Structures are given as structure tokens and as C-alpha cells.
């Protein structure tokens, strides 16, 4: 059963790997929620398989991965696992401390957008909402 296009975007906000600094993900989750989206939030250090499972169960459109240390290095494994699970339409965004050279690596791996420190609420909510619409369009087609 899929969510109709006009329903609020469904976004999973989480962290992979080992780091637990979550001020950024908590603030962003609150921003997305206050912008009217359905936000699913988890504690940090999720396993990739668990994120895929949750994305499936919760029928999410966008997954937001927060990274302060180097956990974003795992994101290519996530995009691959999503594709394998038939969730290729789900858009993945990353936010946090991401060095320039890692950013290109992430974009090559299918990440839709990297939000750096200093990104505004407006930028994030607008982009995530737009990506959610695109995810639903992709799934329909």
C-alpha cells in the first residue's frame, strides 16, 4: 500500500555507524516535523539492514543520515542495500561534517544532496519535501 502523492512527506532521520552526536539530527527532525512532514526518528548507530527494514515498514520517501564523525562513509552501502531491497525510489540525503572529497563520493553513490553546517531550515525543508514528491513520482512510474 503506497502513500498518495498529496499526503505529507514521510522522512526517516537517523545515524549509521559508531558516532552518537545527535544534536543536528534532533534539530533537523524537529524542523521537518514542524514543516508538516511525518518524521520517523531513531537512536543513533543503526545497522544498514535495520534502516532498510524501517524504510520499508514505514514507507518512507526520504532518508536523512546525520554524520559528525566519519560514519557517512557507510552511506554508499546503504544506497546499495536500498536498491537491492526494491527501494530505489527512496531518496537519501546526508547532513553534517562531510569533507568536500567525500561529498563527491556520496553524490556518485546516489545520494541526492549533502547539507553542510550552516544550511538553513528553509533550504532543508524545501529540498526534502521536493525529494519526497520525486520519490513518489518515481515509484508510480
Amino acid at each position, binding site marked *: 500500500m503506497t502513500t498518495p502523492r498529496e499526503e505529507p512527506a514521510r522522512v526517516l532521520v537517523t545515524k549509521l*555507524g*559508531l*558516532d*552518537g*552526536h*545527535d*544534536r543536528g539530527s*534532533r*534539530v533537523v*527532525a*524537529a*524542523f521537518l*516535523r514542524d514543516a508538516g512532514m511525518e*518524521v520517523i*526518528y*531513531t*537512536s*543513533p*548507530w543503526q545497522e544498514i539492514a535495520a534502516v532498510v527494514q524501517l524504510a520499508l515498514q514505514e514507507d518512507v520517501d526520504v532518508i536523512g543520515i546525520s554524520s559528525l*564523525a*566519519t*560514519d557517512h*562513509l*557507510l552511506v554508499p552501502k546503504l544506497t546499495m542495500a536500498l536498491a537491492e531491497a526494491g527501494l530505489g525510489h527512496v531518496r537519501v540525503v546526508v547532513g553534517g*561534517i562531510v*569533507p*568536500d*572529497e567525500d561529498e563527491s563520493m556520496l553524490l556518485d553513490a546516489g545520494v541526492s544532496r549533502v547539507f*553542510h*553546517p*550552516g544550511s*538553513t*531550515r*528553509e533550504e532543508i525543508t524545501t529540498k526534502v519535501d521536493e525529494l519526497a514528491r520525486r520519490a513518489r513520482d518515481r515509484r508510480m512510474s
Partner: protein
Amino acid sequence: MSQRPVQIPLPGFEAARARWQDTYNQQMGEEKVRRNRSGVEIRALYTPGDWSGERYLEDLGFPGEAPMTRGIYPSMHRGRTWSQRQLIGLGTPEDYNARLARILDAGGSAVSLIPCNSVYRGFDADEVDALLLGTCGAVVNTVDDMDTCFEGVDVAALSTAMNDPLPFTLLALLLAVAKRRGIPWDKVTGTSNQSDYISHFVANHMFFRIALPGSRRVLVDHIDFASRRLPGWNPLSVVGQHMQQGGATPAEAMGLTLSTAVQYAEDCIARGMDPDTFLPRFTFFFDISISFFEEVAKMRAGRRIWCRLVRERFGAQDPRSWRFKFHGQTSGVDLTRQQPLNNIARVTAQAMAGIFGGLQSLHTDSHDEVLSVPTEDAARIAISTQNILREEAHLVDVIDPLGGSYYVEKLTDDMEEEILSVMKRVDDAGGMYRAVESGMVQSMIGASALAFQEKIESGEQTVVGVNAYRVEEDGSSRGALSRPLPEVMQTQLDRLARYKASREMAAVNAALDALARSAHDDGENVYEKVVDAAVAGATHGEIVARLREEMGFGEPLVQV
């Protein structure tokens, strides 16, 4: 010629003040009330009407004397400046050893050990995704690894601050190394940083390893063990930094930290320990934000509250128990990715606030921390910043140089009031342990984090290069990063496998079984068994795993 403090009422004072106020109001018109990050109202001018020095002896006193507002030692920075303790740790034990050697060559005597995030999470290298190994700290799992870290270094001559959450496996490995080298444990000096499990449960979740009740017990066991066996070791560092980095205002961070320290002290007293045996070795760790005067006042107020509290609440008699010793770290949250060299200016202002706040040890952030793990170049600038402030700007010539400023004294009083009101909320909730268990503290911090971000979004709080004074950038000022090569980490993994295969397994298993039993026997000291296990050859990951089995895996309480 010295001036006597102005006494109020001063003839003509009120008339002069009213005259100034009129002119000020005419020029400024209707003004919005200004508040600092803690919510304290900040007025345009402070005068003897706000602080007159009449209660000098009760509220300030002299450095090294109660209530310690002006500093915890009689000579403060003029006698001995702060320790320059930069965080180090990246890659393998060999990498750590090489970096340590360079620091010691440069005259350092206080060092830190920052382990890899896999270690923080309680795992050995072979239990996590190898991609992440050594990217944020040193991979240290075994007594051999620890030996390599300190190869060629006299462990007894160093003060080592280890980022070592409970059950304090790194200290146990260090003690095993000391034993191997024939160094008596009473010669080992340093601090168990990251021993404050409450701050991990609430804010820095990465360090939270063992479920809350187990954590509570292991910390007291550790303090007890250190009191008996490690006279040179500070077993506890209560960390306000996590609270503030997690979003707490400066006053909330100070209040929550003091309440946490009260909880730990009460837990030790409940175990039958005498406050004057453990309080002298409590240390604190604070974030220093760029809200300059607010930070100075936060630290002065914290010192005063702690001194009064330990005397009144715990009956501490020994003046060493009254000293609020703290390390400060400049706030990473204030740094920006935009125009990253601007961060050098931010760190300078933050460091000045910490110095004027009377800290005992200082870490200055590298300007590139917002881009990646710091490069060595940037770390050197961070150290130079401290040297310049100390020896070129002469910030250390006078003790508590901002003391006696009408503003700083009034702000110290106001911050004290805010801090005490936070502490009262915690007391009313049944103390810090209960207050974090229920999520009350997490909600407080979450709301403050959001409120501060709103101020940045609305432009009420300027952040240069982010919401004001933006410039086009080409990214050329961003340094290159260094990460351990995969083949180097493979060598480390091979070494771990060889280590595990070469041990006397009967002794390791016996020690781990004894550790497991101690978790269910209140007559035993769990930390003693942790040390025994390390000496017997158990790895960091094995010790943590065994305690997690017996005491429960630590899951922080996360709220949005």
C-alpha cells in the same frame, strides 16, 4: 593610587544616573530587551547600583579561599598557567605513539588519548565495519596496543587524560602496561575523562555503554578503587560540555553538571565513603561558547556554588574538596564551515573567556574541525593561540582580572541565580539520576537547542559567514584530510587476531567469569575485576561485552 570601592548611596549618584538614562533613552528610542543565551537580561550599563562590593568577603573573597569565586588557588595563572591539553588520537597505536613523541619533544607533559569510535562504542576492531576504524581516534584494544602507544615513554612521568567511558578499560590496559614495566600503580597519574555516564545517557550518546543501574554502580566502584589504589588518578570528570554541545544554555549546562556531581557524591556517601576522600579528586569539564561574558560569569558562579554546596550539603572540611577544578574546551558548535579561517578568531575569543573564567586546563579547537578531523597544521595554530594569549597578550599577569567589574559581578550573581534554579528543578525531580531517567533533562536540552537554532534562522543571532556577511568561496582554504589507509588497518586487525590466539585462555576466561560474578555481588568491586581481566590478557571489547551481558546494553534515552 588605589581607589576605594564606591559606596551606595553616593551623593548625587541617583540624579546623575537618571540624567544619563534620559539621554540614553532619547538616542536609542524603544529598545527590545536583550538576553544572553541563558536568558539573563543584559542591560546597557552597570554601575555601583548593581554591584557595590559590600559583600566582597562573603561573595568573592581571595583566590584559593572560600567561596573561591576568584579562583581555586592563591596564585592562579600567575603561579602556574593552565595545562595545554590537546586531544590526540588517530589511526593505529604506532600513529598515536609518533604523535605523542612529537608533543613530548615540544615540551608537553600533559597528554590525552582519544580512542577510535569503535572503542567508544565498546567494541574491538574486529567487531565493526573496517571502513570506520581509526578515522576519529586511535584503535586501542589490548595491553600490547597500549604498550605500543606509550613505547619509549615513561608512563610514570606523564599526566594522561584518557577518554575512557566506564568500565574504564583503557585505564585497566594502562595499569596492565605499568605492571608489565614494573611501575607501581601509585605512580600512574591522570584523569578518567568521559567517566560521567549521566552526561552520556543524556547528551553524548556515543559513550553510553552499560544500562543505567549498572553504570551507576561501576562508577562508584571505580572511584572507590582509585581512592584506595591510585592516589595520582582523578577517577571522575563531570562533563558539562556534553550538555552544552547538546543544546543546553550555559546556565543549564552548569546547573546540570553541578547536579550530576551532587548525585555522584551522594552515591559515594551512600557507599560509606567520606566526602573529603573523594571530593578532592572530582574534576569538571566545560564547553566555552563564544558568548564571552556569559561564559566568564558561568565559571565564576559555578566555582562559588560548588564551594558553598560541598561545605553546606556534604560537610566537606578539607579545602581541597572545595576546589572546582575544571578543563575547558572551546565550543565546536560555534564554528562555521563557511570561511573556516574565521574560526581562529572565534576560538581566540572563546579561549579568552575560559582563561578569564579561571580554568585549569584548556583545549582550543582547530579551525578545520567543522570540515574534518583536525589537520596537524590547524592543531598547531590552536596551540599557538594559547601561547599568544598567555605570553604576548599577558592575560595571566593578574588573577581574575574581570573581577570587580560591575557588569561581570552582576552577571555572575544573575547566572548563579539561573544555575541554582536549574539545580532546584533537578532536586524537585528527585535528583539527577531520576531526572534523566524520566527524560526531564533531555526535554530541557532539546528545547534549548531548538530555541537557539531558531535565533540563528531568524537572524536574531548573527553567525558571520552563515546568516550575515556571506561571501562567495571556492573552498581553497580547506585543508586536506588524512585517513588511515585500509592496508594499515588490516595490519592492526591481523595483530589483534594474533594477540587473541596467543593468550593463556584459561586465565582470560577465569578473569572474565570473575568479572561476571562481581556484577551480581555487591560485596565485590567490579572495577577491580575489570583491571584483573586486563592484566590477565582480556581485550577491551571482551570486557565491555561481558559486562553488557550481565548488566544490560546501554541504550540512551533519545527524544526529539
